């Protein structure tokens, strides 16, 4: 039962990672500007470096979080007596509410997909995306956009790493789950890349992002809430 709860938490964390919109949004802008400035072939190859940067930094954060979670949760500490478990439950419940109301700046607007980051940061990212010329620029912007989403992803990385370490002896080798987690979080970028490759433009992609806005917001919020409930039920009681 404990292993099933762990699988549930990891799958929900994957769902959240696949529903987050900051990195796909920056990627859509990046491909748009690159396509306007360069040939389709060069824009595609630059975009692959963006995806590589984003996935490598995501993998590094996730692998580091194994060490952090070992120190926080598994170093001879029973989760039932560990105050950090309650802190993380609080964080997940807060993120559940915060993502529902504040993940998008205007959750009910059908005009935009402005996210929780400050407007100054959004303009800064936009300027960097516009001026990107080389594969290393693309790599750095991919990494930067992933860093900007850390307020939401960091607690997820730590709790997912803890759960993977809990269950590895019972079901899966933890390296397989780690690879799977990183791959699932890259699906939105690969999907967007494929859409650009088949000839869709930023207008089509942005319209579908606006259409899916409420669903992704609800999916993120409910997943955070369910993770908190699963931790309370299976790690505390």
């Amino acid at each position, binding site marked *: 039962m404990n292993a099933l709860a762990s699988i549930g938490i990891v799958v929900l964390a994957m769902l959240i990672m696949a529903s987050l919109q900051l990195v796909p*949004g920056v990627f859509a802008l990046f491909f*748009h500007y690159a396509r*306007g400035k360069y040939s389709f072939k060069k824009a595609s190859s630059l975009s692959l470096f963006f995806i590589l940067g984003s996935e490598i930094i995501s993998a590094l954060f996730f692998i580091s979080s194994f060490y952090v979670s070992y120190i926080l949760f598994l170093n001879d500490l029973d989760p039932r007596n560990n105050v950090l478990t309650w802190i993380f439950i609080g964080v997940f419940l807060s993120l559940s509410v915060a993502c529902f109301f504040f993940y998008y700046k205007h959750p009910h607007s059908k005009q935009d*997909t402005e*996210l929780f980051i400050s407007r100054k940061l959004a303009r800064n990212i936009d300027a960097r995306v516009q001026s990107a010329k080389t594969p290393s620029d693309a790599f750095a912007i991919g990494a930067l956009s992933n860093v900007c989403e850390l307020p939401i992803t960091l607690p997820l990385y730590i709790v997912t790493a803890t759960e993977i370490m809990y269950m590895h002896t019972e079901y899966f080798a933890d390296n397989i789950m780690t690879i799977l987690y990183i791959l699932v979080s890259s699906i939105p970028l690969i999907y967007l890349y494929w859409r650009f490759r088949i000839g869709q433009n*930023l207008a089509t992609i942005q319209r579908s*992002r606006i259409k899916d806005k409420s669903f992704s917001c609800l999916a993120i919020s409910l997943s955070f809430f369910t993770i908190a409930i699963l931790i309370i039920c299976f790690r505390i009681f």
Partner: protein
Amino acid sequence: MQDYDQNKLKRELMLDARSVGIPSGAAEDFVNRSIAAATESLSNKHIITNGDLKRALTKELKKYHPDLAYVYQNRDKII
């Protein structure tokens, strides 16, 4: 307050136009006509805000290519 830089605006619109898949010649034609029409429609105003210019240009661009107009209107509202 900032000066209106028509060349910069044209460069940005050309980039958007190429990116949404409009061939260069047609893109230049659409952009030039739209800028001219938008400037004409705002000529009776002494002070023009960015919002005024954006609305007027979007209206003109819609006549030629709705996707280009949409991208121009919403590019800064994506993240």
